[in-house]
């Protein structure tokens, strides 16, 4: 029988996104300067760097400039510098420009970017610096020594759907590291375990998430201005659901159309993928997409909670960065630069820990001090009550946000800290309302979910244990059907959850091979009985330029 491989490394980042890669590059350079020969590696569950990366994205180069002062000469695969920007309030059939766009919402000097392309670029730079990147390996658990994290276990491969070993079974590995840095993205599965075990959200506002769904459209030659940026509010979400749409012009006549939907809505019938289709019924969007063709689809969740929803960032031997911690500026719709900066500050902390040969909780805790004294805090502090204002709807959110501009971010202009609520707790029982009765999917312009999922190039080995663990399937057919009308069928943007009727009655069918790894089910399930765990390494979406 094959044995578990054991690999001894010095620093392991989990998840090859901008946070980890920027952190790994910065750390490798710091080690080089101090003559420290420690190894730095990044674990990534996708088959290649970038294949699970999705964002809007408008990219603020602030951290990149710190990491690569000569970034302008480096052929970074940006789509374009932001050229023209618009903000509209949409009503069914109409669009009104916002009379005033505050400076914080302007994107001058930023770049329309495919995070997939950018992350691949950053991955290549990391390898040049001597960082090892292990693609196709999922981190499934921690290795502990007492209460200190001393490594990560990767998942076994070749286990069939009944849990039996297949002929090519290969056990996972134990990667030992002095410091494990979790840059898994939103609602990371290891991050979730760590937060629970060490109660890292104590005294914090609950994290509030949103889901972003997007489609890329290939438009006729010469019709898309790279660097075009438009954001909207209003239709199709209305005033009671947080969120809005974005439309960005990319290279080669690709139009990027997406919608962010707050995962703190009340109507259990809300379906983000369907809202995106509703958005496309707006005559303005129809005119923008005329004669185009969909080429890609994807979804991801994003942490909207802001400063007060940041967990404690360190325990002995491990730290949280990027979306795993919640470094995202909801008002500016940006997180990549904050994610990168958090990774870089983590790197500085780790470099000092190596100098002192101390990886305890007390030693790594200086990461929090570094965050507090950096521009990272300045930026997030000013918008610390941004999302909470939307508890009072769109108008409330805008007023609160506007007042915050003059008071350095105080809630309603006076309060230092507004509370937030778990999104899944806000869902109202017995109020499921169908918002999509008049949507007609034609397979060419408006898509049902399965069609959209096809464009996400998602694949999973079918003969494995489903990676979505529902702890009590009885609740699905009893309580949940009655109370919420099975919202999993709605909130999942990839048709993973399906209530089916067969000879034994009604049951939940989990089409896990559709899963685009957005984690929305783990976040939004009203009973919190869904655990998203990583499937076999290499499985999942095959995104190229989302």
């Amino acid at each position: 029988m094959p044995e578990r491989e054991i690999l001894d490394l010095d620093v392991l980042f989990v998840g090859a996104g901008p946070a980890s890669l920027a952190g790994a590059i910065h750390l490798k350079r710091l080690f080089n300067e101090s003559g420290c020969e420690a190894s730095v590696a990044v674990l990534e569950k996708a088959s290649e760097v970038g294949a699970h990366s999705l964002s809007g994205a408008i990219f603020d180069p602030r951290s990149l400039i710190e990491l690569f002062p000569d970034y302008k000469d480096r052929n970074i695969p940006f789509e374009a510098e932001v050229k023209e920007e618009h903000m509209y309030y949409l009503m069914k059939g109409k669009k009104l420009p916002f009379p005033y766009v505050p400076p914080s919402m302007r994107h001058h000097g930023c770049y329309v970017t495919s995070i997939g392309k950018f992350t691949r670029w950053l991955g290549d730079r990391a390898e040049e610096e001597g960082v090892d990147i292990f693609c196709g390996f999922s981190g499934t658990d921690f290795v502990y020594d007492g209460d200190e994290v001393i490594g990560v276990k990767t998942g076994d491969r070749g286990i069939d759907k009944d849990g039996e070993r297949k002929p090519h079974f290969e056990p996972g590995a134990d990667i030992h590291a002095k410091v494990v840095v979790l840059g898994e993205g939103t609602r990371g599965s290891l991050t979730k375990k760590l937060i629970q075990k060490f109660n890292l959200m104590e005294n914090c506002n609950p994290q509030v998430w949103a889901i972003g769904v997007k489609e890329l459209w290939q438009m006729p030659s010469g019709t898309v201005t790279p660097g075009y940026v438009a954001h909207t509010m209003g239709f199709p979400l209305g005033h009671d659901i947080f969120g809005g749409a974005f439309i960005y012009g990319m290279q080669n006549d690709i139009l990027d159309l997406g919608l962010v939907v707050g995962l703190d809505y009340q109507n259990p019938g809300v379906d983000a993928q369907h809202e995106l289709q509703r958005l496309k019924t707006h005559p303005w969007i129809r005119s923008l997409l005329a004669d185009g063709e969909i080429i890609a689809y994807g979804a991801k969740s994003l942490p909207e909670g802001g400063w007060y929803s940041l967990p404690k960032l360190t325990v002995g031997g491990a730290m949280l960065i990027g979306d795993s911690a919640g470094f995202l500026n909801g008002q500016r719709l940006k997180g990549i630069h904050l994610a990168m900066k958090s990774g870089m500050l983590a790197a500085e902390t780790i470099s000092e820990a190596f100098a002192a040969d101390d990886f305890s909780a007390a030693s790594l805790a200086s990461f929090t001090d570094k965050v507090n004294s950096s521009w990272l805090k300045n930026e997030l502090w000013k918008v610390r009550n941004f999302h909470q204002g939307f508890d009072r709807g769109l108008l409330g959110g805008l007023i609160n946000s506007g007042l915050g501009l003059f008071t350095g971010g105080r809630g309603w202009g006076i309060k230092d800290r507004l509370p937030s609520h778990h999104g899944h707790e806000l869902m109202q029982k017995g109020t499921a309302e169908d918002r999509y009765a008049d949507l007609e999917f034609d397979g060419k312009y408006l898509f049902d979910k399965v069609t959209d999922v096809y464009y996400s190039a998602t694949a999973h080995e079918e003969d494995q244990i489903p990676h979505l663990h529902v702890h009590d399937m009885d609740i699905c057919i009893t309580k949940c059907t009655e109370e919420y009308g099975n919202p999993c069928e709605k909130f999942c943007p990839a048709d993973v959850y399906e209530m089916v009727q067969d000879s034994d009655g009604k049951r939940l069918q989990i089409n896990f091979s559709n899963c685009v790894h957005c984690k929305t089910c783990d976040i939004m399930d009203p009973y919190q009985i869904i655990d998203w765990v990583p499937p076999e390494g290499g499985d999942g979406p095959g995104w190229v330029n989302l």
Partner: protein
Amino acid sequence: MKLCVLVKQVPGSESALRIASGNTWVEDAAALFEMNESDNYALEEALQIKESLGNDSEVVVVSMGPERVQKVIREALSKGADRGIHINEIPEIKSDPFATAQVFANVIKVENFDLIFSGLQSDDVGSGQTGVILGEMLGMATATLVMATEVQEGSIKVKRELESGWFQWVSMSTPASITIQSGINQPRYPSLKGIMGAKKKEMKVVDLSTAVTIEKQQSFANIYLPIADKKTEMIEGNVDQMVSRLVDVLKTEIKVL
């Protein structure tokens, strides 16, 4: 023993492929690329032979294409191949197995390989000829559709897949070029240590675009998505009429009787 494995990087089957303007190939920019499936089995076969011989045998992986193909070469190195050769893309021969074999022959003839392995065909073009033509150009014995191998002193015995469930065992003297059928073995996953070790292995980049005269034999005139052309005829009448119409259709329209 010196073993060579030809690997090709092809668009992954899950990618929603689009035909590029000009209608002679798909849009590369929209695809995720991976190792051609049967090449992965060919690689595994070569690695297993190397391991079974236990002496100083060597597995060399060769791929042609743009810079991105170094990813599949590195993948092979991380699984245990010893060194890699990346032949820079020569765009005009993308779809031509004869010209492709010519380029490969030019690069690897100096290596004097005992065995050349390749997948039986590529998942994108699927002509299934490169391995055979290459063997011929290098004066080697060739065998296709190989389901099992037994390496002996100065020769190799291979089991070939024939039609209708028939197989054929053939012994050939080395050097030989054989093309491997998918499913012959159980390809391994790269290990973490393998991935780290692969970085230190040699990857030679060869540029032949000006050094060889390409004898191009074929090119794509047009590629297009299958045209869905579904015709349904409801056959009505009594049983005799229906049978007679059905036989008529099978004979004259579908021509299977």
